[in-house]
């Protein structure tokens, strides 16, 4: 089989993985919260995009900012009202809280949207690039995923909110002494995490049928990407996502599709033992 096709498949998939994991990584790295809601946020973004397209004919690209804004508000609200109350407690407390919130959101979506797989069908065809077939929907998804991840990277580095988030991540006590409202930054960070998850879900709905049954799988992917790439940074999620996409694609051909996910987990375990910071992670966030 053509190596170029294998690599292209891996890169396209990896970009989407990066987009879905970057919000999870940010929340974990800055707030030290393992956000069990992340998979449900992705599916909610996918459902909102699908139903807007299916019922009202709204183009998925127009829905991206709407989904992002809605999910940001939801994330901000949940952090400000619930999670901030226990954010300094041991990680197991926040994990349990987000797990409970996830059960509510998950069952809400299952009851009102049903678990039926939904996919936005744009039928954009595919291009043949020197014998490498690339479906245009996947290319579009990849390009937008990279764009969103890039925007987040620029925001984190150059905006005052981004600098405040980085400051809180480095030392929340010092940040508070500098006049940064830490709880507000926590809520904004969680909102950004939800925004990235929702928009990733909207992009996934272009290439993959979304259903509530996938929340656990998306959450698992986010974990692996964070461990491979490194926690708390945009480049970490990008490198981790692309690495996981390529690992799954190459191992699917070398070892068979049955073992492609296993290989991803093996790489994660090896990194946990020998390089807990991940490939490009910052020391102290492992």
């Amino acid at each position, binding site marked *: *089989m053509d190596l170029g096709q294998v690599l292209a498949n891996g890169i396209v998939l990896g970009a989407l993985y990066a987009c879905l994991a970057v919000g999870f990584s940010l929340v974990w790295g800055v707030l030290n919260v393992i956000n069990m809601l992340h998979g449900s946020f992705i599916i909610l973004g996918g459902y909102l995009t699908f139903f807007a397209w299916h019922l009202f004919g709204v183009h998925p690209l127009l829905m991206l900012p709407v989904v992002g804004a809605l999910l940001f508000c939801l994330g901000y609200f949940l952090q400000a009202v619930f999670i901030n109350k226990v954010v300094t407690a041991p990680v197991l407390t926040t994990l349990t809280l987000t797990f409970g919130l996830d059960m509510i959101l998950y069952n809400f979506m299952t009851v009102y949207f049903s678990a039926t797989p939904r996919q936005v069908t744009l039928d954009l065809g595919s291009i043949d690039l020197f014998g490498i077939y690339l479906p245009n929907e996947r290319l579009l998804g990849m390009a937008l995923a990279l764009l969103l991840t890039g925007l987040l990277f620029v925001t984190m580095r150059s905006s005052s909110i981004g600098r405040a988030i980085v400051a809180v991540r480095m030392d929340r006590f010092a940040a508070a002494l500098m006049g940064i409202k830490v709880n507000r930054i926590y809520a904004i960070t969680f909102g950004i995490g939800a925004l990235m998850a929702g928009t990733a879900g909207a992009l996934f709905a272009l290439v993959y049928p979304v259903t509530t049954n996938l929340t656990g799988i998306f959450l698992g992917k986010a974990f692996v990407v964070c461990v491979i790439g490194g926690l708390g940074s945009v480049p970490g999620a990008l490198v981790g996502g692309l690495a996981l996409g390529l690992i799954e694609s190459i191992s699917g051909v070398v070892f068979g599709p049955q073992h492609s996910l296993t290989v991803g987990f093996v790489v994660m375990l090896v990194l946990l033992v020998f390089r807990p910071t991940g490939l490009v992670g910052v020391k102290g966030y492992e």
Partner: protein
Amino acid sequence: MLKTSHAKTRSALLTSIALTCGVSVALAASAAGAQETVRIGAPLALTGGLADEGKKQELVYKMWEEKVNAAGGIEIDGQKHPVEIIEYDYQTDGPRAGQLAERLINEDDVHVLMSPFGSGHTKIAATVGQRYRIPTIACVASSESVYTQGNPYLFGTLSPNAHMTEAMVTYLKDKVPGLETVAVYGRDDVFPKSMAEATVKAAEDQGLEIVYNQLYAVGTMDHAAGISSIVAAEPDWIYVSGYTQDLIVIRRQLADLGAKAPIVTMVTGPAYVEFTEALGDLADGISSQTWWHHSVDYEGEGAWKTTDEFYQDFMEASGGQDPDYIHGSCAGALVMLEDVLKRAGSLDGEAIREALASTEITTFYGPIDFGENGMNQARDLPIIQVQGENIEVLYPESIATAEIKLLNE
């Protein structure tokens, strides 16, 4: 004063005795007039990952309950008994399905259990039924491993997977000249894996060459690697077994990566309306196997005497949605239960079990004939194909509505 008080006490005592006797007589008379309700327990996955499937079961259970009660109930030993389906949501949590089965038996005194969706959860609920000698009817469990546990109280209306795959290979070899090679790609999960294995065996037994045979892991989001290998092998027939969301992606990627096979079979893709709705034109030409499709035409006894009668009632109850094999099998199981209870002549668990074991009837769902392991042994299961906007039945010939159409023709 003392004498008056004694007289009052005696009078009150007599009144109490008279009242007690009166109430007892009235209760006894009432019990003699009303027949015992047939109670059927149903742990259902109404929330959680299998909520869609659980709701499908719930819908036909309610349809049947209303229809049977409207007709006065089921006649058992010369008297009509109303029916009641008692359901609990087990939240797609296997152990909870077992706990609720226990509650249905011990607290709600059900006479029969309808099993939850899928082979794994059926196994859990059926084990509880066996412990209390209450028959369990499984309408959506097809893996033979569920029925080889030595549970004489478990009966399933779906036929073994091998019955489907053998018929499929035989049919295709007969109808498609030059069919020589097949690629098999299945999800590494109980049902899809057993279907993939059964297809490989049936294909080898009938002289087809297997040019690709791989499983994909649960949670695989991209099938490009597997599909690229399939395309390179240039098979005449591509057989994929999985669940709807996987099959939609695989069908798209088959088209994106230039697969040219004249026959593409996806189990149980076209059996679900979600598959054809999501794929649109790409669903055209995809064949499948299923235990039941509403295009079939069987006649029998019970609440719904013909497939069409069930279909019309279902369309009304569901607001215009087509039924799939889950609806058909579960409604068929309850129609069969009417016949079983009549033959059992009582609501005793052992009597019902014996009547179930000797079942051999045809319902609107098709023939039901339980083998030694309690699984329906009916053969001639439908092969279907999406042709344009319709689902056509290709096999068995007695109910076929079209000939097979090859892809890329």
